[in-house]
């Protein structure tokens, strides 16, 4: 089956070639982990490498912020917008959802006019203010994701996780069930420094790499590197060497 490359070195290998077309991927992480950068890279790669127009739906940041941030990686989003290959829309979840529900709405028009194939929704966390009831919230997000798929879009949806280090429960832990692919970005404290870890927790309809990999944000964007060797407890945010834990386990006996 054809894959949709993310354009993130190392990540496509983890995804066994890339995302599946017309699927929704949740990229979740703490502030500053690189969710938006990863999403922008996905959109830029679609335009620059595959000739696929893209949409960025932002619920918080102004388009000027994306122009600025993208320029740091050499991606000229302003020019791509002028060329009709990219559209950055600042709106709200309720309005974008209402447009998706009606025929001929904004997103439908854009997919037809621009031939958009990719979308970044930044971020899904803003839906949480629309419904206090988790069941209602789940239904809303489910409908929204299906609307994007119906329009033929392959979507990356970001979600904030308030925990800088260690486990954190989001307001609605049902959301990962609604998406096809679930990528987690985490901070890891190791040897008196903070590193970043990436893990593909789920990929519906495909096998994927189960390693927890290091990644960094370089002048070219996100780059996924090698797995954490000889460490365990990485998702706790404070890993320890496997030998030490082995000794610990041994001593306990």
């Amino acid at each position: 089956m054809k894959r949709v490359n993310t354009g993130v070195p190392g990540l496509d290998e983890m995804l066994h070639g890339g995302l599946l077309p017309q699927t929704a991927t949740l990229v979740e992480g703490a502030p500053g982990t690189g969710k938006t950068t990863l999403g922008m890279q996905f959109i830029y790669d679609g335009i620059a490498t595959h000739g696929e127009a893209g949409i960025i739906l932002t619920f918080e940041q102004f388009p000027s912020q994306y122009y600025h941030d993208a320029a740091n990686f050499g991606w000229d989003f302003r020019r791509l917008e002028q060329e009709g290959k990219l559209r950055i829309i600042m709106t709200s979840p309720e309005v974008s959802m209402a447009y998706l529900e009606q025929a001929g709405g904004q997103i439908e028009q854009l997919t037809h006019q621009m031939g958009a194939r990719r979308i970044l929704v930044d971020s899904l966390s803003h839906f949480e203010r629309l419904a206090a009831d988790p069941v209602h919230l789940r239904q809303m997000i489910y409908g929204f994701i299906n609307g994007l798929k119906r329009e033929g879009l392959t979507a990356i949806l970001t979600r904030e996780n308030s925990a800088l280090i260690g486990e954190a429960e989001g307001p609605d832990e049902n959301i990962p069930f609604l998406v096809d692919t679930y990528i987690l970005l985490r901070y890891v404290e190791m040897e008196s420094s903070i590193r970043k870890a990436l893990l593909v927790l789920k990929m519906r309809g495909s096998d994927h790499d189960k390693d927890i990999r290091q990644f960094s944000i370089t002048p070219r964007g996100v780059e996924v590197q090698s797995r954490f060797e000889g460490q365990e407890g990485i998702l706790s945010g404070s890993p320890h060497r496997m030998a030490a834990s082995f000794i610990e386990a041994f001593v306990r006996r």
Partner: protein
Amino acid sequence: MNDDLTRHTMEDIDPDLLDFLKNKVTSFVKWDFIRFFHENPHTTDTAENIARYAGRNVHTTRTELAELAASGVLTENRLGDMTVYALVNDPRIRELIGRFVEASNQRDFRVKAVYHIIRSMR
């Protein structure tokens, strides 16, 4: 006396911009929203959300957006149970807005525009 001063102050402004200023930009909040939509030309949203983006009071925002829609700068549409605002598609108006925003970055024009708005608000 004041009328003479205004006439003298405004007479060297581009007539199209002067007309736009007199008929569309009748308050500082409208000026803010015109700039907002110029910088975010693809935004379609409710008055409540636009107020949040612009850091303005919702009640004032509602009134000012409705007036901008009535004067042809914005469109006002029903979307489900919401009223949403967006920049008009008319390329002539968009070009005029672009010229207005560009001109308002120049101190000389800005001073005159501020003077005009203060006077029209009396």
